[in-house]
């Protein structure tokens, strides 16, 4: 029996995944950047033709009571509870939308596809989705469009022609501006800082850093970039890397930017354990639950992300406007209830707005 167990164990241990290759990487990517204006005036969006899909012969739904199903990546997690809360809130406000949330219990592409397929058969008027995979979900969404159903995405996009609109929670340059603005406000416009990121295989982080570089050059030219370190979205590695930065730069280091939801809490932990709270500011992308202890202890002042309740709320309003025929290909903005007017970007995306900054005052209102 021992032998058998050993065989099984050795088989299991083989499968612990591949060791990631390390490489030298300075931070940003080489793609062109589009930094926002320093004072926050909205840039005029580059004109791009509508590249979304069009439903086949939809019935006239203007002002009618419509049945909408919301299919997030998965159900039972705080983040999508928050988006579905926003959708329900908007539906209650409008009074003529009957919205339910139903998603797979795991972030599984097949379950999500099957679920959407069933809702197409059951004859809903609209489908809101957050895709587990942009390509895999496309055939079933196209099928929905062919059935005359209005299709709007949020949080995670599909291929553009498989849906009508996508509510984009944050653009790269918006996140970059929020990060650098928060940093400059906390540590001053001529402070030195370092970045803890994931790896070069994660395109989002590279994009954000490139945009941050461009924005800082424009608006805070005296900020000192010390170093960008890789931490591979690994909890322990992130902590160690942040710790190394603290020891290496000593008093020169005024701020650490965390580029992943793993790196930010780990950096906050490293600063806390080094007793440097108040001397070294930690700012970063992270979910509120992971950051509450550090924010409550006054060690972290700004956590940058978006508000998922608003995201769901906006998605529901975009759905209503699409069903009513008020939001047409070529339009440049859409009314979204309490959020006001949202602008259309990239052809068929609606921008939620500036990122949301969680602070000590509001972080306890969120649970995800």
């Amino acid at each position, binding site marked *: 029996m021992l*032998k*058998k*167990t050993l*065989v*099984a164990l050795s*088989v*299991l241990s*083989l*499968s*612990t*995944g*591949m060791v990631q290759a390390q490489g030298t990487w300075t931070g940003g990517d080489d793609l062109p950047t589009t930094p926002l204006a320093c004072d926050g005036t909205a840039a005029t969006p580059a004109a791009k033709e509508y590249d979304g899909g069009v439903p086949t012969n939809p019935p006239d739904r203007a002002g009618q009571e419509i049945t909408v199903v919301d299919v997030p990546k998965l*159900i039972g997690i705080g983040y999508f509870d928050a988006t579905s809360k926003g959708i329900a809130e908007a539906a209650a406000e409008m009074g003529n939308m009957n919205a*339910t949330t*139903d*998603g*797979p*219990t*795991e972030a*599984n*592409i*097949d*379950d999500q*596809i*099957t*679920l959407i*397929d*069933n*809702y197409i*058969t*059951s*004859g809903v008027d609209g489908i809101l989705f957050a895709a587990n*995979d942009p*390509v*895999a*979900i*496309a*055939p079933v969404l196209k099928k929905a469009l062919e059935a005359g159903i209005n299709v709007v995405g949020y949080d995670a996009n599909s291929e553009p022609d498989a849906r009508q609109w996508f509510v984009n929670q944050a653009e790269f340059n918006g996140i970059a501006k929020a990060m650098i603005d928060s940093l400059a406000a906390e540590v001053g416009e001529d402070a030195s800082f370092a970045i803890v990121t994931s790896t070069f*295989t994660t395109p989002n982080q590279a994009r954000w850093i490139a945009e941050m570089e461009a924005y800082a050059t424009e608006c805070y030219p005296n900020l000192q970039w010390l170093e960008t370190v890789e931490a591979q979205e690994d909890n322990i590695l992130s902590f160690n890397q942040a710790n190394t930065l603290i020891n290496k730069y000593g008093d020169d280091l005024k701020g650490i930017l965390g580029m992943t939801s793993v790196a930010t809490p780990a950096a906050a932990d490293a600063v806390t354990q080094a007793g440097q709270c108040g001397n070294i500011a930690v700012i970063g992308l992270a979910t509120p639950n992971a950051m509450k202890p550090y924010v409550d202890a006054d060690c972290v002042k700004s956590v940058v992300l978006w508000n998922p309740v608003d995201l769901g709320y906006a998605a529901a309003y975009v759905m209503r406007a699409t069903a009513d025929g008020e939001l047409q290909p070529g339009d440049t903005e859409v009314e979204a209830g309490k959020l006001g007017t949202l602008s259309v970007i990239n052809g068929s995306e609606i921008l939620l707005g500036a990122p949301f900054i969680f602070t000590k005052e509001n972080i306890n209102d969120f649970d995800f």
Partner: protein
Amino acid sequence: MTIKKLLRHETILAVLVVLALIVLAAQSPRFFTVDNLLNQGRLMTEVGLIAIVMTFVIVTGGIDLSVGSILGMSAIMLGVFWKNFGLPLELAIFLALMVGTLAGLFNGLIITRFKVPPLIATLGTLALYRGIAEGVSQARSVRGYPDWFYVLGQGQVLGVPTQLWLLGIVAVVAAVILGMTTWGRMTYATGSNETAARFSGLRVDRVKLLIYSASGFAAALAAVIFVSRVSTTRSDMGTGVELDAITAVVLGGTSIFGGRGTIIGTLLGLILIQALKNGLSLAGVKSDGTIVLIGAVLILTILISNLFHRDGTR
């Protein structure tokens, strides 16, 4: 081991399936339509292929937990062979099927050569194959297959989804092999009493090797169909498929201890689960409620079936 006894579970199940179809059709006018039923057939093909071969595996008293991971690995390899190695897609499909078959053969070798219990061996390879899939893919997907490839997963032949034909052919062939051939008899014998089978001169290990290889092949075939249906490859494809397949097989009356089970039963089990999933969803039951009901149906069916089998056998 009488034919009568076998019939009884299948009969109960068939009655249940008919009942379920009637009740579900009454719940939603959109359920019992040709379009919907054919579409459901499309959706259940992948699990169906795996479940049919899983019936053989479980009849021998074994189990194969690694099928979902083999599906994921074969799907990734299909993409890698085609995109990264630049092979023609036909050859890539063939090689992906070979990868799945070899993965199954490897399961069989661990089980027969090293006498590792199938549960542990395939639990190991469940992790191993998924790890390989994730390692090879590095979270990248392969997309943009030529149009002819999508016929398999998204198209139809004579008004019936392409892959449903395939499922039908595999089901008939499997039913004939298990029910009417020496191979089928050997499969039952292995599961009923392996020691007796060995002493009767049956090449039990060869039977098992072949069956586990076939299981890997079925998973790879399901992978090709799955990739064609969703038009992309991902390393997490097929996660949890093993449980869906095993549920269908067990619901179909195959004894988890081996020696008993039929392909018809498995097919009825598959249909019942798929009908419940789809019908309940159309009737407005959310997916969390649906899985609770499917669990309850599984237990109830086995209980009812056992009530009729109070004769000292399992």
